[in-house]
């Protein structure tokens, strides 16, 4: 079980209000990702759930029981920290066994569980080493091992992959997703990387300045962002926004169109522009096109290798069904 309910939760540090009243329901077995720019309060929210920070007001319930005043040790949650936070003076085995030892479990059961976790995470070869002798990826696995042996109600991940290099990050992303499928336990994952959010989550919670901007599945957020902030934050490269004449044409303040929903042509189209920087990734090509009447260049995604040069005049046409319209407050118009 791992159902978590936040009810009117707030948090202030002195006079600074980090989390205004917030409600959130996390279902058992869900993979929920908190995403948002740095300083949006996502880590604070996770630490409130963990019990490492005290709430200023509100209630939190875990599996229907009020946990507002329950200390972190008694909440039955396991956490994986950004810095891994391994115990440097203990071997991998002792690190993973620590929560079980704290739970006063029998040694035979501890050994069984630690060996099992080591097998799942491919740690058996390093079991007697100290954390200092491990690579970043291995340390991360030990931290996850320490979390899974307890069979917690939910896992909390605080930007666990941000210290790893790009290739390893992709690997670990898959491993964590795989682990979620295997264990079928609630996972709450904090990241500022929207690619991690999109690829891993069942449900994404987009935060800005402590406020929940939108909650939904990755594709819901991608297809129907509730406002301009979510539209700009989800998707990579980010959505293009146009105001003034181009928006007035559609009867709104701002229009948004994703780079993959713009058709590019040398001959004709809705907007005329000049090619600036192009980024060739092999599978895709991104063009930055300076369009008349728009402050920022528009990003266009073209499939495969497209041969367009800097300074060339091109025409862009938005795919009508993928056009997003926003009002003066930045809210989506449907």
């Amino acid at each position: 079980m791992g159902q978590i309910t936040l009810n009117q939760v707030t948090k202030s540090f002195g006079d600074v209000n980090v989390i205004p009243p917030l409600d959130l329901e996390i279902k058992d077995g869900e993979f929920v990702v908190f995403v948002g720019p740095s300083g949006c309060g996502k880590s604070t929210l996770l630490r409130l759930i963990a019990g490492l920070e005290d709430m200023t007001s509100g209630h939190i319930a875990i599996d229907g029981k009020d946990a507002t005043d329950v200390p972190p040790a008694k909440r039955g949650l396991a956490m994986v920290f950004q810095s891994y936070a391994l115990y440097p003076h203990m071997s991998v085995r002792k690190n993973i066994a620590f929560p079980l030892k704290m739970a006063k479990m029998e040694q035979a059961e501890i050994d069984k569980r630690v060996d099992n976790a080591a097998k799942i995470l491919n740690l058996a070869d390093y079991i007697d080493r100290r954390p200092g002798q491990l690579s970043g990826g291995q340390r991360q696995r030990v931290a996850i091992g320490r979390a899974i042996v307890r069979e917690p109600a939910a896992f909390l991940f605080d930007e666990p992959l941000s210290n790893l290099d790009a290739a390893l990050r992709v690997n670990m992303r898959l491993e964590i997703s795989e682990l979620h499928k295997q264990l079928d336990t609630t996972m709450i994952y904090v990241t500022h990387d929207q690619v991690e959010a999109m690829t891993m989550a069942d449900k994404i919670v987009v935060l800005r300045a402590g406020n929940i901007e939108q909650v939904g599945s990755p594709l819901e957020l991608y297809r129907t962002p509730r406002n301009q902030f979510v539209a700009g934050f989800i998707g990579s490269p980010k959505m293009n926004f146009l105001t003034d004449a181009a928006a007035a044409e559609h009867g709104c303040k701002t229009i948004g169109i994703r780079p993959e929903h713009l058709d590019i042509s040398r001959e004709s189209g809705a907007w005329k522009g000049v090619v600036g920087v192009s980024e060739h990734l092999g599978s895709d090509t991104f063009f930055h096109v300076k369009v008349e009447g728009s402050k920022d260049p528009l990003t266009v995604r073209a499939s495969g290798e497209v041969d367009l040069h800097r300074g060339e005049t091109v025409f862009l046409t938005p795919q009508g069904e993928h056009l997003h319209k926003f009002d003066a407050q930045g809210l989506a118009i449907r």
Partner: protein
Amino acid sequence: MARAVNTQRKAINTAAAWTVALLIFFPILWTILTSFKTEAQAISDPPVFFAFDWTLENYGVVLERSNYSRFLWNSIIIAGGSTILGILIAVPAAWSMAFVPSKRTKDILLWMLSTKMLPAVGVLYPIYLLFIKLGLLDSRTGLVIVLMLMNLPIIVWMLYTYFKEIPGEILEAARMDGASLKEEIVHILTPMAIPGIASTLLLNFILAWNEAFWTLNLTAAKAAPLTAFIASYSSPEGLFYAKLSAASTMAIAPILVLGWFSQKQLVSGLTFGAVK
């Protein structure tokens, strides 16, 4: 050219370092040398450095006249007891200051240190009266308490700087792993801070060992440590320089040996945090 200058500079620096070191060590060296002289040679003018008749006579007399082992034992109990008691109180105090600081934590630390700026004699009278009332005069228990209180600010400060270097996330991880506050301190914080705690133990043991004001004023015979043993040879009448030196040498020898073997730990402890 540059290399020649470098070598020359190195030689000068080395010579300067030795000069300063010898200057600092000279009183101790002179004490040790004097302890092997006769009383007449000890006060001879001009003084003799090495060309005297080396004798162990002073040590014989001192050992015969006083019960060295009793003073030594008292010193060990008082220095050791006050240090261990101090550590037991300072670890939780430093933990709370380092990991759950409040707005006033820095002020409290400074205030604690400021108590060290007061001359000890300023509180001699009240403490003396308290000791009479509590029957602690000339007792090892009394001295353990007083020396512990005197050194507590230093112990807390040292541990605080060590603890500050330990990432808070590790302690939070322990909390998430189900450790109680006590388990967190015993299983995680203390083992991680062992080098710092060892340096603190050593330094405070040395400070307590050498402490003379309280040990001389609050003891008579029963609880007197080695400082009192030395003082008993500094008589206003008669000339006992050689015997005084022999007693001093015997009093500092144990701590000198301890310091010598733990110098690496001590230096790393005292310069901790100076670089990064």
